[in-house]
């Protein structure tokens, strides 16, 4: 068993492209989690050119909720449906200054209290492919088929999380993460993808930092 693991480890490392990631945090208020507090992670979707990917939002939410120090996280879809129509792309509060007028709506405030939501985490950003180079040719004939060539592409993830405290109606901080990596696909008969897991790395970095940020008394 151990031999198999040792044998596959270098192969796994070899097959994964390299990713570099940085995470930065700016704190502007105190935090802390009580047992009854819940967090909601929401994606920004009002921009025309991009939207925060739902799978990134759920990745951060799931990572926040996992582990011994996991935080109670309300799923995005459940929250948005419960608060319909106030968190749709066109109606959601964009700035912290929009929050008091929303919370002045008794129905919204009651619903948020029932859900036990203390923090809103807004994720804004996206992952994009910036540069692709190389070429690959594939051919099929009655005798068989195969590919030959080399393709490489760069991917970059840039996300920012704004954390709003619904009790104090203030923005308590921001966490940003940038990750980039190059994936390769050499092909001699069979293409072998060496994928840099850029978005996954950004998700892991963001969730770890968020968890520490919310638990910390600041």
């Amino acid at each position, binding site marked *: 068993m151990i031999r198999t693991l040792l044998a596959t480890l270098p192969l796994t490392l070899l097959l994964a492209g390299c990713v570099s990631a940085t995470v930065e945090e700016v704190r502007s208020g105190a935090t802390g989690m009580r047992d009854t507090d819940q967090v909601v992670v929401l994606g920004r979707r009002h921009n025309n050119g991009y939207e925060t990917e739902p799978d990134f939002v759920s990745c951060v939410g799931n990572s926040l909720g996992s582990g011994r120090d996991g935080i109670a996280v309300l799923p995005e879809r459940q929250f948005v449906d419960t608060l319909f129509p106030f968190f*749709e792309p066109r109606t959601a509060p964009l700035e912290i200054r929009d929050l008091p007028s929303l919370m002045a709506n008794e129905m919204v405030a009651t619903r948020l209290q029932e859900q036990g939501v203390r923090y809103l985490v807004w994720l804004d950003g996206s992952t994009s492919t910036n540069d692709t180079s190389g070429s690959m040719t594939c051919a099929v004939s009655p005798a068989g088929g195969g590919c030959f060539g080399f393709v490489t592409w760069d991917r970059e993830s840039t996300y920012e999380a704004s954390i709003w405290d619904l009790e104090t109606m203030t923005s308590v901080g921001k966490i940003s993460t940038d990750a980039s990596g190059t994936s390769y696909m050499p092909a001699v008969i069979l293409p072998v993808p060496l994928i840099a897991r850029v978005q996954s790395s950004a998700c892991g970095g963001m969730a770890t930092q968020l968890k520490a940020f919310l638990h910390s008394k600041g």
Partner: protein
Amino acid sequence: MRYRVPSKAPRTSRRRPSGPLFLVPTLLALLLAGCGTTTVQVTGGDFPKPIVPSMPLTLGVHFSEQFRSYRLQESVPQRGDWSIDIGNAQVSMLRAVLPAMFDQVVEVDSLEPETLPQGLNAILVPSVQEMQFAIPFQTRSNFFEVWIRYEMSLIDQRGDVIARWPVTAYGKTRSLMLETAEAAMRDAAINALRDAGAFLAIGFPNQQELRPWLERELAALDFTP
């Protein structure tokens, strides 16, 4: 692969397919033509009820046959024909949204004054003025997008128009690697319908065209929104 040199020998006869064999190319052509249409059936269902204050009014609502079965059919160059059916889904959306906005909502089959039930404060008649969509091929982005422009008409028991106002809606969804174009377009259409529902639920009490009627009706009930 073998390359066959054409024979120089004179052809003695060239038989044309006769009988049922003649139908084969025709059937093949029809089959291939059928592959060019992408059909998107936006099924009704899971629209959430809005959390807005309910007005103490009884609203009639009339879904015309055209509204119930609304379907956009359009051809996209190099990407074939698209058929997007939102009829059922938009009725479902209004069935979820309107009962939260009014104390009572009654669906009426006809707008003939003599067939309308008594006690309605007004009747809402929604209609689709325009619908458009875009696929990633057209916009060179990763998004499927849907735009819908509704016209809402509010009429009284005699059939006279109280007010007309537009409701615009927009929805988009990201094109995913393992998702079909149909599924992505369906999600974009559902997002557009949610947007329409949100706009209607929040905007109704503040709609300029409706103000005089709403103030009159609510004043008669001594109700302040």
